[in-house]
């Protein structure tokens, strides 16, 4: 917005400038009128309170930073599983290990698990997460046939018979005598 004194403005430019100035004055007057009303009617108390808060906060933050920079550890946070304040004790005078040593009985499988490793255990146990397979627990297989135990009981096994037949044929020269299992062929020794 240049109120330049270089060259005389054309009437069109003058008009445009006039318009602009009027709009600007109007906008400024709007704001002034609103602010005046807000101030007079007591609506702006929170603004002052907020600025006061900000000032106090800035002062305290600066003071705190001075105190704690040499100290270091107090406010420093650790990324990861959270080891809390280094050294010292908590408000009850206790200390705690990095990984919680409490032993918990898993609700899913019933096994005792160290608290600090409960979540990864539970993830696998419940079959959530990426690499987990749901564990077969007592409760999940109740009522179903135990297919895992069936293998030993059934006679479905190709190897056991073959072993028997081979064993029978092993002795040399002994043919047909006493051999009860399918002696269709006999080896003749010339």
């Amino acid at each position, binding site marked *: 917005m240049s109120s330049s004194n270089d060259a005389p403005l054309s009437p069109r430019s003058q008009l445009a400038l006039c318009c602009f100035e*009027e709009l600007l*004055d*109007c906008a400024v*007057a*709007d*704001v002034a*009128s*609103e*602010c*005046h*009303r*807000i101030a*007079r*009617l*007591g*609506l*702006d*108390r*929170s*603004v002052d309170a*907020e*600025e006061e*808060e*900000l*000032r106090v*906060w*800035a002062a*305290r933050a600066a003071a*705190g*930073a001075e105190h704690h920079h040499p100290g270091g550890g*107090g*406010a420093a*946070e650790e*990324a*990861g*599983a*959270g080891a*809390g*304040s280094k050294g010292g004790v*908590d*408000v*009850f005078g*206790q200390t*705690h290990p990095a990984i*919680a040593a*409490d032993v*918990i009985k898993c*609700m899913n499988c019933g096994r005792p698990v160290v*608290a*600090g*490793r*409960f*979540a*990864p255990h*539970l*993830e696998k146990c*419940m079959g*959530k*997460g990426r690499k987990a397979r749901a564990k077969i627990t007592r409760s*999940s297989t109740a009522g179903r046939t135990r297919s895992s135990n069936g293998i030993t009981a059934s006679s479905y096994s190709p190897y056991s018979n073959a072993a028997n037949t081979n064993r029978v044929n092993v002795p040399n020269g002994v043919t047909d005598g006493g051999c009860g299992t399918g002696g269709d062929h006999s080896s003749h020794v010339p």
Partner: protein
Amino acid sequence: MSTPSAPPPCPHLAAHRLSSRPLRFLRRCLRVRPLGRPEIRRDPRELPRCSPCAAASPSQSPRLYACLSCAAVFCPSHAASHASASAGPGHQIAVDVDRAELFCAACGDQVYDPDFDHAVFLAQSSSLLPSTSSTSPSPAPRKRRRVDYRAWAPDPAEFALMSSADPTTSASAAAPAGLRGLNNLGNTCFMNSVLQALLHAPPLRNYFLGDRHNRFLCPRRTPVRHRATEADAAKVACLACDLDEIYSAAFSGERMPYSPAKFLYSWWQHASNLASYEQQDAHEFFISILDHIHENIKDDQHKSHAQGHGDCCIAHRVFSGILRSDVTCTSCGFTSTTFEPCMDISLDLDIGDNTPFGVANTKPHVRNGERGLAGMNSKVSTLMRCLERFTRAERLDAEQKFFCERCDERQESLKQMSIRRLPLVSCFHIKRFEHSAVKKVSRKVDHCLQFPFSLDMAPYLSSSILRSRYGNRIFPAEASDADAVSELSSEFEIFAVITHSGKLEAGHYVTYLRLNNHWYKCDDAWVTRVEEHTVRTSQAYMLFYVQKTLYYKACERAAAV
């Protein structure tokens, strides 16, 4: 304290009110332009001009006043002469024709009158009658009668009785009741931090400690032997019961850290999509458990949680508020209003782009520069500024044109949010994690946020926002009871802060609790006492405020327990 109060009138205004004819005639001249801007015109097409000026130069002054007594129009430079020159008194008061503001030419200052404001307000609301204005009945028609608050403090005898009965509240106790560390079960600091905040949310704490949800009597729990298949397990686990167990453990007086393993197991049964051994977002967890608590204990008869009454479950009773969303057509001023319940408010961190002037400039307070704090502004955001930004009128994108019923076509519009009803506990979630869909990258915003310990939410209420939209006029008491009472109880006190430190993928959550006016840091199993400035300078991620004064609903039954 945001109800406008009329300042004492200047002697000229007072004299005018007594002697001159009432302002009734002005009502006929009040015309309301789109977006609620009132102006004074005797005739709709009238173009006022300053008579003394008209002779002189063609340029017009932006401000024109019309004398209330003789309707002469003049600009500010001729105002004083009109007031003194005219014969007879009563020519001192004029009205700004474009802004409908009273002006005392003798004092040379803008003055305010409640009756005039009332007239303007009526003109504005009648012009926008088809849409909801603040005098129309609220969509939540049930009026809540409230019992008046009477302050109470124990006398010495009662105080002695209280201290002797409960050892944990006596002066000799090392730490306040309910303070107990929570073991990290493997990347579960997100869960521990939220649990700590919930453990000390006064309404929620009182609910569980008051045995309102007894885990041994909960009908949703069935005994183990009745459990038919694994599929029923999810229905059996009641998160509210597990929360009850955590309250019992925390307030038992035991000081060794507690392992919330059962809660984790129950939550994973409910929220299977979030069940994995990896770091999670605390806010997501917070919303998830509130949702599941609602599912577990909601009373199916009460469908009213959609209106934010909170009668369905304790989670909604404590955290649910109602947000009001107004979409205004920029060409005709028609406003469409919707209400939606919310459990928390997510705020953008405004990083130092302090543009104090919203498009329509409807903010209740306007900043005039930050005197003396200029150096701070680029890095420091404040919670109040974030809230102001949240309730600011925003111009919607050209692509999101809103279909205006009155114009009968799509128009550009303004959207403004405000709070219709405040919850008992306000949870503010600071959006520190930015996910850019374009760049396919997420990052954390580390800027510091200043937050007050005492917060007055009055400027963000619908009543305040609406009032400022219509020019902050003084008008008589609010139409609906609910609004009036909510003004009384808009003061909040902070009690918990959940902070996040570290990076997006590998970070750590810590909760700061304010108990008995001391601050405690709850870092998983480690609970330590800290100073205020540690809390003030931490990176707040979630802030929990509780209403300072709780009101009891008046009981309709004659004989109440």
